[in-house]
C-alpha cells in the first residue's frame, strides 16, 4: 500500500472509480476513516463510489445502514466528536428533507457552538442531478439549499481528477464537507456518461484545494461559469463560440463553499461579460448569488447585464419531452452570450 501511493503512474478513471480510489487510499492511510450509508457495502454504492471497500476493509469500517438517515448521519457527528473520520452517503440529495437537521444543525454548527473546541471532520457524499427520467424526487441538484446554510463546505467535482483530489481534501478537512457528485458524470454506463468527466488520474494520493476555482479554458471575450455537470455545458458552448470567433473563458467553481469570489471577479473584470450555468432551480440559488457577486465586485467593468442559464422554478418533470428541453444546454449558453455581445446568430 505504501508503494501503491508511491508510484507515479496515472490511469483513466470515471468519477465513481476516482471516489472509490480516494476512499480506499485514505482508509489505508488513516484507520479513523470509515464509510456508512445505504447499499454502500456489498453493493458498492448505487453509484459505484464505494466499490471494493467492503472486501478490503470489512464490515466494521464499511457499514450498510438501515433506511435511517437521521440516525446514521447523527451518528457520524458523534463518531467525529471522538476522533473518527466518518464518510457518510445520502444516496440522493433529494432525500435531504428527512435528515437535514443532523446535517445543518449538528454537523454544520457544533464547531461554532463549541467555540472551535469540537470540530466535526466528516464528509457527506450525495448524488445530484437529472436528465435520465428519474422525476421530481430523484433528479434535483439542490446546490443552493446546502450552500446557503453556514458551517458546511460544499464541493462539486466536474471530472475524475478533481473528484479524487477533492475527496482526499474533504476527508482530511477538519470540517463537514458536502460532496455533491453528479449522476451524469459518474461514469456508470447505466446513467450515460459525460465523456469529459473521465480523465487521467494519478494513482498517488493528492488533494485539490477546497475553495479554489479553476480556469479550465482561458479567454478574453466573455466569462462562462459552471461547476459539476454545467462545466461541460460551458466548455461545449465555448467551442461553439470559438467557431464564431468569440473567445470565452470558462471557470469551474469546483467549490460553492467557500466560494472563490476572487477568481470570479478577476475573470469578469477581464471580460466584462458573464454567463452562469446552473442545473439547480433558478431562483434564490447559486445562479443568483454568482450574478450578485459579479455585480458587487465588477460593476464598473461590466459591459452587459450578467446572465444566467438555470433550471426553471418547477419540480423536475419525468417525461423526457418535459425535462430535457429545460436542462441547461450549450444552445442556451451560446444565445445568452450572443445577446450580451449584440451578435445576431
Amino acid at each position, binding site marked *: 500500500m505504501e508503494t501503491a501511493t508511491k508510484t507515479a503512474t496515472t490511469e483513466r478513471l470515471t468519477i465513481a472509480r476516482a471516489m472509490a480510489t480516494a476512499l480506499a487510499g485514505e482508509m489505508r492511510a488513516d484507520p479513523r476513516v470509515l464509510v456508512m450509508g*445505504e*447499499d454502500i457495502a*456489498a*453493493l458498492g454504492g*448505487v453509484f459505484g463510489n464505494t466499490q471494493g471497500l467492503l472486501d478490503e476493509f470489512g464490515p466494521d469500517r464499511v457499514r*450498510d*445502514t*438501515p*433506511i*435511517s438517515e*437521521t440516525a446514521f448521519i447523527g451518528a457520524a457527528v458523534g463518531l467525529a466528536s471522538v476522533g473518527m473520520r466518518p464518510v457518510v452517503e445520502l444516496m440522493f440529495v*433529494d*432525500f435531504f*428533507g*428527512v435528515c437535514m437537521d443532523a446535517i445543518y444543525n449538528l454537523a454544520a454548527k457544533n464547531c461554532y457552538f463549541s467555540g472551535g473546541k469540537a470540530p466535526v471532520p466528516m464528509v457527506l457524499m450525495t448524488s445530484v442531478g437529472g*436528465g*435520465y*427520467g*428519474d*422525476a*421530481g*424526487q*430523484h433528479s434535483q441538484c439542490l446546490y443552493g439549499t446546502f450552500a446557503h446554510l453556514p458551517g458546511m463546505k460544499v464541493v462539486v467535482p466536474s471530472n475524475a481528477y478533481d473528484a479524487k483530489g477533492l475527496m482526499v481534501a474533504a476527508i482530511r478537512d477538519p470540517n463537514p464537507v458536502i460532496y455533491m457528485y453528479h449522476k451524469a458524470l459518474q461514469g456508470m*454506463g*447505466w*446513467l*450515460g456518461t459525460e465523456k469529459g468527466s473521465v480523465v487521467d488520474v494519478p494513482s498517488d494520493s493528492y488533494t485539490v484545494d477546497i475553495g479554489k476555482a479553476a480556469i479550465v479554458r482561458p479567454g478574453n471575450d466573455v466569462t462562462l461559469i459552471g461547476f459539476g455537470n454545467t462545466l461541460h455545458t460551458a466548455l461545449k458552448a465555448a467551442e461553439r463560440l470559438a467557431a464564431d470567433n468569440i473567445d470565452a473563458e470558462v471557470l469551474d467553481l469546483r467549490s460553492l463553499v467557500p466560494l472563490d469570489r476572487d477568481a470570479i471577479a478577476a475573470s469578469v473584470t477581464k471580460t466584462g461579460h458573464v454567463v452562469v450555468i446552473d442545473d439547480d432551480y433558478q431562483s434564490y440559488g447559486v445562479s443568483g448569488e454568482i450574478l450578485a457577486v459579479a455585480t458587487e465586485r465588477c460593476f464598473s467593468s461590466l459591459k452587459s447585464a450578467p446572465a444566467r442559464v438555470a433550471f*426553471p*422554478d*418547477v*419540480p423536475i*418533470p*419525468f*417525461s*423526457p*419531452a*418535459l*425535462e430535457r*428541453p*429545460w436542462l441547461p444546454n450549450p444552445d442556451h449558453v451560446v444565445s445568452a452570450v450572443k445577446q450580451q455581445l449584440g451578435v445576431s446568430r
Partner: protein
Amino acid sequence: MHADTKTQLWMLETMLVSRHYEDAVKAAYMEGKTPRFNMADGPIPGEMHLSSGQEPCAVGVCAHLTPTDAVTATHRPHHIAIAKGVDLKAMTAEIFGKASGLAGGRGGHMHLFDPAVNFCCSGIIAEGMGPALGAALGRQLQKEDGIAVAFIGEGAANQGAFHETLNLAAVWNVGVVFVIEDNAWGISVAKSASTAVANNAERAAAYGMPGYHVTDNDPDAIYTTAGEAIARARSGGGPSLIEIQTLRLEGHFLGDAEAYRPEAERESRDKRDPIPRYIERLRRDGTLSDTDESAMRERALARVESALAYARAEPLPPATDALTAVFA
C-alpha cells in the same frame, strides 16, 4: 372474515392483470436499453421498480376498499394501483411520459396520482404514511365514509416517519391501516441487517395498536387479516399494523444484477411464486374451472395489451407543459 368465491376470483384476476402488466412494462422498459443499458434510453426512462411476487398484498387488502378509501403506496406501486382501480390506460400513459398520462407525464412511475379512486404514491421512503393518516382523519372530521391504508416496505419501518405516524394515529384514534410488504430486502440490505426485531408487527405494541403478522404470501390469509383491521378502522376502533411476508421476484429495479442475493434464494424464488399456488388452490377447491381460467387470462392480457397500446400511441406533451400545474 373469509374471502368468498367472487372475491377470490377477483383477487386472482387482478393478480393476473398485475403480473401481465409488470411483464409488459418490463419488455417496454428494456426496449432501446440493449445491448447497452442506459436508464435514459428507450420509451420508459428512469428507475423501474416492479411488484412481481407481491400481488397478494395488494389484492388481499384492496378487496376491502371502496374508491372513497384512500391508499398511499411507494416507489413500487403498480400492483396496488391496479388493485385500487386506478385508470390503467392513463397510468400507463403516465409511465410512458405521455400527455394523456395521469399527470401529463410530469410524474412518472413513482408518482401516480388518481384522485378519482383516492390513490397516490411517492418515491421517498415512508412518505405516504402521514398523508394516509390525514386522509382518514379528514373523513372522520367530515363525518363521511372512508378510511385509509398506507403501504410501505419492510425497510421503511426503520424510518422516523413510521414511528411518528403510528404514534399520532394511535393518540388521535384515526382509522388508518398500515401495511408492510416485507419482501426481505431494502435494495441490497437484508431485513435482518436493518431491523432490530424479527417482525415489525411486534412494533405495534409500542403504539398500543393491534399488530398482525401474515407469514404466508397468500391472498386469502391476507384478505382475512386485512378485513379485521379495516373493519376496526371503519367502526372507529382506530389504527392497526400489518406485516406481510411477501416475495420480490425481480431485482430492486430493472437492471439490478442482484449479486447480493444468495444463489439459493434466487433459484427457489420462482417456485414460491404466489400466483400459480393460488390458481392451484382455486382449482382444487373447484372455485376455478379450466374455462374460467383461460377466459380470465385472456381478459387480463387484453386489458394490459390495450393499455400498453394506448400509451404507446399517445403523443408526448409539449415542452411548455413542464411549466404548468406547479400551482393550482
